[in-house]
């Protein structure tokens, strides 16, 4: 491998003018919620820093994270983003394949020991010694551990790598687990979502390249700048929630007027993500804006929380799936009946023994 170019050199080589480059730096600063004074700092970093090698592994997944990622609009267009980092290995996107591709993986790990970023999409299944996901002729879990050992930092792309997602949903036959169950000795940045928003993905990478450190993470390891608030907190339909104006059922008057989707099961109030601010497809829209409730795809175990269209979660431990209110009314009803019966017996007993006490 030749000497790695700086980001700026790569951009210039690809025909990006300096003017576009500076515009990009300002946009990135804005996208990250930083002040305008940060634009020159970003420019300086990109002019002087070598590109950081990134290894992108694919486990048990649907590749929607990659699909989302390649549609990132800000920071700039996809080809620039792919050149910002030195994406040395990504078996889905890279030109080489087979032994050739695997050779690159080994070479990069050896050459940039302790310096590369490991991005993991999908997750490892552990059942049957990991045989449910074979990559390069080996169980994915082995490849993951091998690549993680010498990584500087690890990014968990999407809900699969962060929480487990659909393949870890009950009954989870392959025993798919989020990567933090396998990698316990490295910092992991969780970027959940099914898929995560493109600009969130590139934003996290840009932050790490610019500042040379991990973004500030919340209690569960998600970058605070994108995951510190719920969809509900910044939802443009929030005034209808506060007013008590809801879509009662699909296609009713409330749905046409764009009322709050809370009653038809919107998970916005329990979902931490940036959809209601960053939005999707270059900021065009997001699910709630399209008239459908949030399904909570960036939350842990969202497949196992019952219907996407119910407000109250089903509790499967109760055999037949029931929500808290159904269980509560049944129990309260039973206790009420028991009280009534007990009161009746008490009254009879007391009447019988009334004479004894006097």
């Amino acid at each position, binding site marked *: 491998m030749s000497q790695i170019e700086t980001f700026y050199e790569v951009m210039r080589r690809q025909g990006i003018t300096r003017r576009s480059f500076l515009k990009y730096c300002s946009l990135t600063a804005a996208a990250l919620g930083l002040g305008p004074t940060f634009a020159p700092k970003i420019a300086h970093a990109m002019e002087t820093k070598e590109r950081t090698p990134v290894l992108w592994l694919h486990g048990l997944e649907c590749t929607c994270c990659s699909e989302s990622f390649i549609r990132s609009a800000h920071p700039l267009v996809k080809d620039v983003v792919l050149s910002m980092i030195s994406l040395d290995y990504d078996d889905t996107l890279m030109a080489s394949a087979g032994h050739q591709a695997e050779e690159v993986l080994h070479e990069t790990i050896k050459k940039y020991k302790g310096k590369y970023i490991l991005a993991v999409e999908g997750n490892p299944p552990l059942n049957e010694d990991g045989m449910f996901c074979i990559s390069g002729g080996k169980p994915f879990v082995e490849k993951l551990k091998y690549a993680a050992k010498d990584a500087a930092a690890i990014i968990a792309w999407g809900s699969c790598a962060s929480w487990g997602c659909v393949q870890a949903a009950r009954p989870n036959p392959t025993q798919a687990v989020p990567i933090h169950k396998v990698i316990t000795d490295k910092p992991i940045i969780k970027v959940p979502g099914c898929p995560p928003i493109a600009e969130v993905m590139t934003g996290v990478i840009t932050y790490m390249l610019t500042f040379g450190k991990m973004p500030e993470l919340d*209690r569960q390891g998600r970058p605070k700048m994108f995951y510190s608030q719920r969809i509900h907190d910044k939802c443009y339909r929030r005034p209808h929630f506060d*007013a*008590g104006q809801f879509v009662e059922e699909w296609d009713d008057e409330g749905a046409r007027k764009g009322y709050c989707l809370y009653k038809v099961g919107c998970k916005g109030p329990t979902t931490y993500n940036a959809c209601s601010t960053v939005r999707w497809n270059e900021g065009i829209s997001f699910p709630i804006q399209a008239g459908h409730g949030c399904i909570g795809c960036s939350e842990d175990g969202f497949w196992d*929380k019952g219907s996407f269209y119910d407000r*109250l979660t089903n509790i499967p431990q109760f055999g037949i799936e029931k929500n808290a209110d159904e269980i509560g009314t049944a129990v309260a009803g039973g206790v009420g009946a028991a009280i009534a019966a*007990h009161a009746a017996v008490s*009254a009879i*007993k*007391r009447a019988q023994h009334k004479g004894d006490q006097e």
Partner: protein
Amino acid sequence: MTMSVKDEDLLTGEERAQEKQLVRKQTAVYVYEAPVRLWHWVTVFSVLILCVTGYLIGAPLPTMPGEAIDNYLMGYIRFAHFTAGYIVAIAFVGRIYWAIVGNSHARELFFPKLLSSAWWKEVWHEARWYLFMEKTPKKYIGHNPLGQLAMFFFFVLGMIFMIVTGFALYGEGLGQGSWADEMFGWVIPLMGQSQDVHTWHRLGMWYLIVFIMTHVYVAVREDIMSRQSLISTMVGGWRMFKDDRPD
């Protein structure tokens, strides 16, 4: 006021009033100090508001007509819920303080004597009394052991659970780094995610509703059928006994 007692009058207020007349002839003990009584009724009022508003937050009222700007129904319901939540939590902390500085009856709620076999024997006796297997209950100045057990597991633990999960959820709205998030935010990943905490908080509401139903029924029944006063004690603080027989 004296009147003849008919069987159908047994559960009426008149009967109780008449019993109180009888009781006054007997010894009375000051059990519940003023702060405990005040706390009890503040909690009653707050928990009622919390249950009603909490139910409506999870299953809101039908849609309000008109423009959003003219309505703030969910806002008011949530405000009432959060305010009552603060009151009940502060009152609970105050109650714990009073358990430390108050009389011995103020501590009963928090320390059921789970390791004492004599205590469990009394629990069993009281349970038999409720199952109509004992003719007469025992006399108690404070809580009877079965009542103490129920108060601890249903009420004390239930309230702690609701306060902790409630403020964890409240911290989500206050935002990361807020006092509620710092103190109780750890509950959310512990239970899975926000949705799970919501579900558990709602199940907790039903747990407390079942407690309230049982508590009110038992208090009324004991007031009538046991050998000591119950309801008036939580108003005036004095425990009065209906007979002179020992135990």
